[in-house]
């Protein structure tokens, strides 16, 4: 049973990575990041209890969920601000941090 859950976590991470690499919309990129993050938490919850105290595992997982929520809140807020300011969410257009490099 636990193997099925690990495979599910792997699928989640793979889907997240695929989204992260292929999506051009910033909102979906943040979404993909969150997917990878949650796959990690899922693995933590599934695999750690066999090694350590269950209460510790649960509290660590709750902490990570809180961090993930905060991160998502920041990510979406940024995406919304950028979309409002530049009227686009396309990360190939939002390249101001890249600097002026000659190609």
């Amino acid at each position: 049973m636990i193997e099925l859950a690990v495979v599910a976590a792997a699928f989640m991470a793979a889907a997240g990575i695929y989204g992260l690499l292929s999506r051009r919309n910033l909102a979906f990129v943040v979404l993909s990041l969150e997917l990878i993050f949650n796959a990690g938490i899922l693995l933590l919850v599934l695999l750690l209890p066999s090694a350590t105290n269950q209460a510790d595992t649960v509290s660590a997982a709750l902490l990570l969920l809180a961090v993930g929520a905060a991160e998502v809140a920041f990510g979406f807020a940024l995406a919304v601000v950028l979309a409002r300011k530049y009227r686009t969410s396309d990360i190939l257009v939002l390249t101001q941090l890249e600097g002026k490099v000659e190609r």
Partner: protein
Amino acid sequence: MSASLAAILILVLPLLVFLLRVAVPFARRQVPVLASSVSVINLVLSAYILYEVIVGGAVLSGFTWLEFGKYRLNAGIFLDKLSASMLLVVWLVAAAVKFYSFGYMYGDRRFEDYYALLSLFAFSMSGLVISLSLIQVFIFWELVGVCSFLLIGFWFDRNAASRASIKAFIVTRLGDVAFFVGLLVLLLSFDTLDITALGHSFGLYLPEASLAALLIFIGAVGKSAQFPLHVWLPDAMEGPTPVSALIHAATMVAAGVYLIARVQFLFVDTSVRGIVLAIGIVTALVASIIAVFQRDIKRVLAFSTISQLGYMMAALGAGAFAYGIYHLYTHAFFKALLFLAAGNVFHAVHSLDITDAGGLIKKLKWTATLFLIGALNLAGFPLTGGFFSKESVLYGVKESGFLWAYYLLIAGVFLTSFYIFKVFFRVFLGAPGKNFEEAHESPSVMIVPMVVLALFSFGTIFLAFAHPLNEAARVHFSFNEAIPSLAASLVGILFAYVTYGLRKFEFEAFAAHAIYEFFYNRLYIDEFYEVVFLGGYRLLAKAAGWIDRYIIDGAVNGVAHVSIFLGQMVKRIESGLVQLYLFYTLVFVFLLALWLYWLGGRF
């Protein structure tokens, strides 16, 4: 005052004059006068040393200068009859030249520098003469070379002078390398470089000693302008004439002869002596033949000097060391005299070409007389110093058994008297030449030193009967022995009188002829060296330049080009797309995982 103290004073005083010019700016005006007074003081001191040495025997004093391994190099003063008499000759000529230069060089832009350099030269030459060990001789040997370089190029703004000074420096350096190697051979095989210690060491018959003798002789060939390395001396005439008289006639060029006489104990092997003799004969003959065809008075005298040094070398090669040195002394006086007379001619008519001059005896009575005295000495006319010394040399060569050498030298005597009297008759007799009207006799400051030199050239007759070098060296010949060379000399003078005195047959009429050109251009030896050695050197330089430009630079530039190319390639990866970077990361993490897995499988 002891003799060694006097010798130290002789060294220190001229050096102080030189340092005064170098280090004390406001003392500039005093340098010429000081240099001349020092030369008079040193003349007296060296006469005193000679007296002390003759009365009290040789003086040796020194200290250990360097010690390494089992070797010990000493420095100090070695005064025997040879070095003390040579010292006197050096200072006699130096004093005469310094006084003469007051007239000749007066008004020159670097008048004071000239005297400073003359003082440095006189210091170096005295050091060379009285050195205790051969390493010391070598140091002073190089110093006189530097002085010669500086004085030949004294008017360095003239291209010919600067080229001549460089040529002299480089050509003599060829011999100096051999000299230095010879010193190393001596040091390795005899553990010492002291002249006296070497003279008393065992094994002087060994091949090492002969090898060292040969190498030292090559050094002397460079310095004394003997045959293959003689090319620098004619060009050295670009320097001021008094310099030619002092350095390139009387003292420095004779240093090679002096050195051979100094280390004569090394020349026990007859084959080495044979080489010295052969080089001397070839030089004496070739140089006198070339001298016959020269037009410039100073060039005639330069080739004459080379030729006379050849006579000295021949005497040394024949084993007649004292005779060779005797000829060195007389030659120093009369050749310096001839050079100074040539300087007077230049002073008067501003040309040294003999075809420009003529009839100058009417204007330059003193100069003509003094030139005649020098010429008679050079030609070996009876009752001159030159007669006795030349007969001694010829006698020494004849006694050694090399009859062919003796006859070749007799032929040289004919050529010698011909070329010098050719100059005398052409310049001083006959119809007036160029600039004749403005010509005037030189001031007495120039004439008096020449008179002194002329007197000393007669004074050397005394040496024929009481030779200071050793008892056995007294002149043995009878006048019957002297008949062949005397005849050759008189025929030469007569021939010169007919051809040039009476203007019957002047060689210069054939100036365009190929044979005349061949001899006038010094057998094209300089051109031969130019093509073979300088050309070869340039070829080598070109090859080295090609290697530098295309192989070494090519490698360096190649590295740069490859880096730039690789940079251009790698640059494309850095597209600025974060997603692409992430993809690369992922690929490498995947590869890393595979690698770790593969590692894990291994264990």
